[in-house]
């Protein structure tokens, strides 16, 4: 049970699943890519998540993925931009439950701490048929997990760092019976068993970093005095194997965050924001010889208090789906989902109901070729969305011993139902808004080599068009949303990793580069310009060297120029930030192991801003000690 905090922080490329097989995890979760042929899916390795456990999902994705994260300061609002789309064009799931705020239509990644997650997966491109609402640029899939057959486990972790960073977490787990779930047949042989895991965490930072205040004459160095952040959370996972064929799984996540909102340079606002969320999901699985039935129910409550003004939303979700394989080469899935949304916002109250019906089919055609077709129909009051199809194929067209080359191609549609605020906010809400929709096509190739010098490389080209993009515009003194923007996106994503050994040193290298063009066809269709805050170029890289139980790591990320508005607006400078880390993974005292890690963030003390005039911290240090009992 050694907890490796930091060994090789690289992506895992999810392998193609050719046959009916469950992930080799103890508690069942449907594989994300089961019907996602031709689509790019990235799965972060556990070690990477451990290395970011004191930080937010926003930090992880900015530094280790092709996404651009619009960060409004240290610990402040962090919204994702997938392939040049907006924050509302990213669907976010936690244990299969869509968790974007129904009033805002997006998630703030700064208050989704990596500490609370066991798995983070990214799916790229429009996938409305597979994942439903808001999967236009892509989707994020977060999950927490408990394990069977591990007995009692507990760990206490403490991180201290610059600018008053003080994070504490405790996790404890108990599972009753040894069991390994390698496939349906194995599971059928299981008896009754129980598993539970509890996590408690508190993350705190004063964020009183020094920065150069560009708004004052002489640009003096000042200390940030209004960016303190505190987050407290509890994650509870439970699973029961009720019989050899039935599994029940429950997860609960409560989190509260209190933040002083860091103003942009030149402003002295003293805004405070408190966000409290309760998320609960209950899954029942019934396993047949060639089938899996899932019943899912979920509840989410989000409360946001901004300067004393309360906005609250609740979502209830019921879903079921049935996955079966009539033969070796075919898989089918059909399902339905009903969502009830209730919003009690500071200026309005509203209820929304959504019904979705979806089906998926996958055919293994032989010769390494699998094809999938997904369809979804969504209905919300007085609106029927068009049938949303997607089709994709994976073709393992060359394989010889060490090498494997895979081609991927897919075409899919995405959509976004206008948010509650878009439709009902007083004043300005526009009930006549149409849904946003997108069409995405991509082709990709990946090349894997397994040898003493092994690598994985993938290159993806995508094109996307988003129509009826909703923008809030001023109408006199009132802002109101309109289906105004039309955007054409295209880009290239490269990701590569390699592993090799020199003597006793194990090396791991990783690099990603993204070219992302997102042209706004709205104002000047003959001379379209790149969307604001959408860098054309992004890159990240990582090199780590491990000898026995000591590991040293150097990583960097680069964000290219981006404009702060449409037309000939101001262009912000590109920046590159370096991080470094040192990990002692196998310190012991008797039976207790205590991995120790030390990280230096912004190693070169780069003075940069992600968004205009939002100060970001310079060099900082973090020391983490975890004690495994």
């Amino acid at each position, binding site marked *: 049970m050694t907890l490796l905090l930091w060994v090789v922080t690289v992506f895992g490329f999810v392998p193609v699943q050719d046959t009916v097989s469950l992930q080799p995890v103890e508690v069942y979760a449907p594989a994300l890519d089961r019907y996602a042929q031709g689509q790019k899916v990235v799965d972060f390795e556990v070690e990477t998540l451990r290395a970011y456990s004191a930080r937010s999902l926003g930090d992880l994705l900015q530094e280790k993925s092709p996404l651009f994260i619009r960060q409004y300061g240290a610990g402040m609002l962090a919204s994702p931009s997938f392939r040049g789309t907006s924050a509302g064009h990213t669907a976010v799931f936690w244990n299969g439950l869509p968790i974007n705020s129904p009033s805002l239509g997006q998630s703030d990644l700064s208050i989704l701490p990596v500490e609370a997650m066991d798995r983070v997966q990214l799916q790229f491109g429009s996938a409305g048929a597979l994942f439903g609402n808001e999967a236009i640029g892509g989707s994020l899939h977060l999950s927490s997990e408990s394990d069977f057959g591990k007995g009692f486990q507990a760990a206490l972790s403490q991180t201290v760092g610059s600018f008053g960073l003080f994070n504490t977490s405790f996790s404890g787990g108990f599972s009753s019976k040894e069991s390994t779930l390698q496939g349906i047949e194995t599971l059928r042989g299981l008896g009754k068993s129980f598993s539970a895991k509890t996590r408690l965490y508190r993350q705190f930072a004063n964020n009183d970093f020094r920065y150069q205040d*560009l*708004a*004052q*004459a002489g*640009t003096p160095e000042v200390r940030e005095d209004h960016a303190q952040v505190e987050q407290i959370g509890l994650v509870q996972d439970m699973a029961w194997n009720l019989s050899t064929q039935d599994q029940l799984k429950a997860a609960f996540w409560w989190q509260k965050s209190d933040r002083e909102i860091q103003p*942009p*340079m*030149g*402003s*002295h606002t003293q805004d405070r924001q408190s966000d409290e969320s309760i998320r609960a999901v209950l899954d029942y699985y019934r396993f047949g010889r060639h089938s899996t039935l899932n019943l899912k129910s979920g509840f989410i409550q989000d409360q946001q208090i901004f*300067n*004393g*003004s309360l906005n609250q939303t609740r979502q209830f979700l019921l879903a079921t789906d049935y996955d079966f394989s009539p033969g070796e080469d075919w898989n089918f899935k059909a399902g339905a989902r009903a969502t009830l949304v209730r919003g009690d916002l500071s200026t309005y109250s509203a209820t929304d109901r959504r019904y979705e019906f979806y089906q998926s089919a996958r055919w293994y055609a032989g010769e390494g070729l699998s094809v999938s077709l997904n369809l979804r129909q969504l209905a919300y009051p007085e609106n029927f969305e068009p049938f949303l199809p997607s089709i994709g194929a994976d073709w393992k067209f060359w394989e010889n011993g060490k090498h494997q080359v895979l081609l991927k191609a897919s075409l899919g549609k995405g959509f976004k139902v206008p948010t509650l605020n878009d439709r009902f906010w007083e*004043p*300005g809400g526009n009930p006549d808004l149409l849904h946003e929709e997108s069409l995405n096509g991509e082709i990709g190739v990946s090349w894997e080599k397994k040898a003493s010098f092994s690598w994985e490389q993938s290159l993806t080209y995508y094109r996307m068009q988003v129509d009826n993009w909703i*923008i809030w*515009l*001023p*109408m*006199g*003194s*009132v802002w*109101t949303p309109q289906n105004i923007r039309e955007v054409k996106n295209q880009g290239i994503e490269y990701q590569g990793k390699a592993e090799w050994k020199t003597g006793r040193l194990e090396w791991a290298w990783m690099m990603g580069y993204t070219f992302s063009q997102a042209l706004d066809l709205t*104002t000047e269709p003959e001379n379209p310009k790149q969307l*604001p805050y959408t860098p054309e170029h992004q890159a990240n890289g990582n090199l780590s060297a491990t000898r026995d139980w000591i590991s040293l790591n150097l990583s960097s990320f680069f964000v290219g120029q981006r*404009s*702060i*508005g*449409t*037309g*000939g*607006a*101001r262009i912000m400078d590109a920046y590159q930030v370096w991080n470094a880390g040192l990990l002692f993974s196998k310190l012991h005292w008797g039976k207790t192991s205590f991995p120790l890690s030390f990280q230096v963030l912004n190693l070169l003390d780069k003075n940069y801003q992600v*968004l*205009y*005039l939002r100060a970001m911290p310079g060099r900082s240090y973090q020391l983490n000690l975890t004690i495994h009992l």
Partner: protein
Amino acid sequence: MKYIFKNQLWALVLLIFAFSCNDNGGEKPLGKYDTGILIMNEGNFGTNDGEVYHYDPSTETLTKDIFELENSRPFAGLVEDMVLEQDRLYLVANTGKVEIVNPGDFKSIGAVSADLDQPRSLATASGKLFISDYGPYDASYATPDSYIAVVSGLDGGTVKKKIEVSNKPEDLFAFGKYVFVAGSEESQIEIIDAEKEEVVKSLEVTGRPVQFFEQNGDLWVYSYDSDHVYFQSFHRDNLTKKEFRELPVGQATGRIALGEDSKIYIVTSSGWPEYQDGVAVVSIFDTTLIPDWTSGSGFYGIGYDQMRQEVYLSNANDFQGAGTVTVFGKDGTEVKSMEVGRGPSGFMFR
């Protein structure tokens, strides 16, 4: 928006003076921004990207971001007003500061950077700065604690006193030891004695007073409500109301410009949800009343170039990025259009 008029007049006076003294040779040389047009770009809320552009109509040269260009740092605020007084240009940021620059080269002279909330405008009197400020918002976004901040030096410094006034003070006008305050929300004109630093008199006016100007030797305040615009003049000797005009111009905004032959150009807007904008032209001294001199959508600021007799009308283009400025001849024909900064809201003609 309040900057234009007294400064236009000031500029006009200077111009006449400059022409009449053309041969004296003792004038200090003009700086590069002492001629031409300053375009105030308010900037976007939450982004603080307000800036000043300079346009030279004789060479048709537009210079971007001149504050940043001359001071090697961004303005970093929302520009609410530009006031040219005492040979200093005051850039009032409603994000809580006043930057003071030399009007000729835009180099920073000083600032008022602490103890302000939402400054709106500024006037100088008795060697002091008087800054109108909405004060902080309360929980329901009202501003019950509006004030006039006093700074005891023309080059900035610390706020020494806050004089409580009615809610949402806008424009200020100083003459002698008096400072007139346009109290927009409660229809008050408050008069401050600059030496005593206290309100000595309050006059109630009709509508929402936002802008002082001088025309034909009199001091006027412009105010408006949903159906009318109003003009009220004052006796400067005994601080009382003098003449009053009420004109049927609906949907007027606070943005006005003084045109040729005592005409007044007023930006109108139907507001939400139709959002039809226009420009009306009126006069206090004759029967001019043109409700739709031009119309469009997104009008945000207006100015009048007395030298070339041209109207400058700006469009914020929904604050999504660059705004535009369109120049019209006084007959309404479009002369030129140019892309400027975010939220162009006003002009100063030098």
